[in-house]
């Protein structure tokens, strides 16, 4: 067992570095830049029951130490993901992949998860509960412990793969939501999704993004992410994946000290396509610097 190995919900991974959903597509763009088999795994583009174009453009805005995106879950739908994307992916990635799933009704989540449960390359199902519930007045599933738990129960009923619930930080009490997901049978929690943000163009006096608001990510949100990972990891017994502005091997270690078993890297991939490879290569050096023999020794090291 190497010093970077961790066990994520029953599956051993070579290192804890996981490109986050929405920043890594289905891997091919990055596979052209480097061998993506160096990754622990990666979380593929958020997939829904039906194909989606997403929001109008502009979808991207620059921020201090970060960016806002309002892509709106553009994806080809679960059937095309299975028939077209996964066969292509299997040619450039030979490890279990994390399937990221979104939905707008509990039944949609269950349907998409049931489809992906049959795919052998899918190791984990990461369920994004930040989407609006069309039958619940448009409130995000992830803002209510009951609604989030309902999604978890529906998904767990149709799969034997580990279910990781990806939580939104745009809530009053993230611990209550995490605990509700754990009680409903979730095998892991990943957090934080992007924070709701907005930019205004001074020349046009209009929002920069066509959708007005979007998800703020990048190094600017890292302290918020560390705080929430710490709070959730101390409240649940299941593994936690930390994410939010992670950009360096030092950030990875900080997340793990806060309680993360693995760490997702998002926006950093977009400005440096080699970000995850560079972080993995740099981890042993930074571990040596801080006297860490094995990453498992530091998970939740801060009490």
């Amino acid at each position: 067992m190497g010093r970077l190995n961790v066990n994520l919900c029953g599956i051993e991974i070579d290192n804890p570095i996981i490109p986050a959903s929405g920043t890594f597509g289905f891997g091919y763009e990055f596979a052209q830049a480097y061998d993506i088999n160096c990754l622990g795994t990666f979380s593929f583009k958020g997939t829904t029951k039906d194909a989606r174009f997403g929001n109008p453009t502009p979808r991207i805005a620059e921020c201090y130490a970060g960016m806002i995106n309002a892509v709106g879950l553009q994806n080809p739908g679960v059937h095309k993901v299975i028939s077209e994307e996964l066969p292509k992916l299997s040619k450039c990635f030979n490890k279990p992949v994390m399937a990221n799933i979104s939905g707008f009704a509990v039944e949609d989540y269950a349907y998409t998860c049931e489809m992906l449960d049959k795919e052998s390359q899918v190791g984990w199902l990461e369920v994004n509960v930040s989407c609006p519930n069309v039958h619940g007045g448009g409130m995000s599933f992830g803002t209510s412990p009951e609604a989030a738990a309902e999604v978890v129960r529906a998904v767990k009923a149709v799969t034997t793969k580990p279910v990781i619930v990806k939580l939104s930080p745009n809530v009053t009490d993230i611990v209550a939501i995490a605990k509700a997901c754990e009680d409903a049978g979730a095998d892991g929690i990943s957090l934080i999704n992007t924070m709701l943000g907005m930019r205004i163009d001074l020349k046009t006096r209009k929002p920069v993004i066509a959708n007005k608001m979007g998800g703020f990510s990048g190094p600017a949100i890292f302290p918020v992410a560390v705080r929430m990972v710490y709070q959730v990891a101390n409240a649940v017994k299941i593994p936690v994946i930390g994410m939010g502005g992670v950009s360096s091997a030092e950030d990875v270690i900080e997340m793990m000290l806060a309680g993360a078993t693995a760490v997702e890297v998002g926006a950093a991939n977009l400005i440096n396509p080699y970000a995850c490879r560079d972080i993995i290569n740099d981890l042993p050096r930074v571990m040596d610097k801080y006297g860490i023999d094995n990453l498992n020794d530091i998970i939740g090291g801060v009490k």
Partner: protein
Amino acid sequence: MKQGIFKISLNEKLVDNVYKMVLQGDTSDITACGQFINIQLDGLYLRRPISVCDCDDTSVTIIYKVVGKGTEQMAKMTVGETLDVLTGLGNGYDLSTSGDKPLLLGGGVGVPPLYMLAKKLIASGKKVSVILGFNTASEVFYEQEFKDLGCDVTVTTVDGSYGTKGFVTGAYPEDYTYFYTCGPEPMLKAIYKTAETNGQMSFEERMGCGFGACMGCSCKTIAGYKRICKDGPVMLKEEILWED
């Protein structure tokens, strides 16, 4: 796509707010005219995508307009400073459909990517007509450079202070076999409606990554959803769907 460190060997003002920069480095991934590079700048999170004006084995030329913090910072940089650049982004123009008398139409800072295209078309024996559109005389650049390549050049200005008064669409030559264009979207729309042949149009959009990962710059086309950064920025006239 390739990441590299490039050294600035020239950074000069062409006209008000428009600068020409030459960067020395590994250009091996720049394989087509009309591609772009994505530049990282100090203190700014997202890279800045700028079209390639010209390139050879060791250098790449870009022309950029100062429109915000990123380009302001670039304008202040001096010879010898370095930039972290992603090269070889985007599809670029397809020269194979040009016919014998291709027409190139550029508007403002949409002019630069047409330069290398004109150079390649001339080198392959085509008779190239170029229409360069600007708002006013003080904005005009690269007229002589296109003439030096051997192109038949027409300059239009909206206010008539230089060249032909009006828009590029008022200056079509009598005879052309195909068109290539880059410029502001209203210009592209006008060309779409008035050009007599098929052609290729280069689009612009706010991008996240610039290499096809984030879906930040998607658009709808007759051929399905495309990413302007990866499947574009050049689209065929016949596949374009105008949204409004």
